[in-house]
């Protein structure tokens, strides 16, 4: 398991390749990548992600550990950025390796669902109109009922 909370950008290609190459005994590799949407005509200038140093790493480790307990997984990777991000930049990624695809998919969805509303990150969007904290979605809270 690798958990990285970092300000620096990450290289999806290099991370995905390294993760997969490290688990050739696993038949299925799933990755999820979250991107700051770069919409034509959108006024989003930048996104700032705040987090709770110390608790963030603990919360992510707990979520990943729970995923490993629930599914038959070879490994889990979670990378989440904080600080300033521009539209089009990657915010975070998770990767799961499993002998079978169902486990790899479900564990990745589980990680994402919990990461959305149980890891202490807060997004703020800066537009021409000023700054606004992104509101948590009921759908994200409801998504946890699945597990």
């Amino acid at each position, binding site marked *: 398991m690798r958990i990285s909370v970092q300000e620096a950008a990450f290289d999806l290609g290099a991370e995905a390749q390294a993760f997969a190459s490290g688990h050739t005994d696993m038949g299925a590799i799933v990755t999820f990548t979250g991107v700051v949407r770069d919409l034509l005509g959108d006024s989003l200038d930048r996104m700032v992600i705040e987090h*709770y140093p110390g*608790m963030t790493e603990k919360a992510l480790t707990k979520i990943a550990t729970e995923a490993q307990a629930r599914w038959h997984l070879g490994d889990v990777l979670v990378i989440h950025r904080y600080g300033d991000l521009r539209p089009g930049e990657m915010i975070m990624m998770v990767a799961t390796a499993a002998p079978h695809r169902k486990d790899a998919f479900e564990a990745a969805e589980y990680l*994402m669902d919990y990461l*959305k*509303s*149980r*890891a*202490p990150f807060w997004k703020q969007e800066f537009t021409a109109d000023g700054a606004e*904290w992104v509101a*948590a979605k009921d759908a994200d809270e409801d998504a946890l009922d699945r597990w």
Partner: protein
Amino acid sequence: MKLDILYFAWVRERIGLPKEKLETSAVTVMDLVEELRGREDRYALAFSDLAALRVAIDQELTDFDAALGDAREVAFFPPMTGG
């Protein structure tokens, strides 16, 4: 009991600081909230709607009726928006 109180996101902005130390005899999180609410308007405002807030004791999510026990750090923040 001496506590570190942490605020994040718009809670931090409303209160105007990210962290403070507090000497308190509060038994539960709710006691602590009442004590903070009584301090100044900015605290009363930040804590006006607890349904919009989350709390962690020593970096673990908990409820407002939780006992502080021998907590060293209590954090208040809005619902999380990671991912």
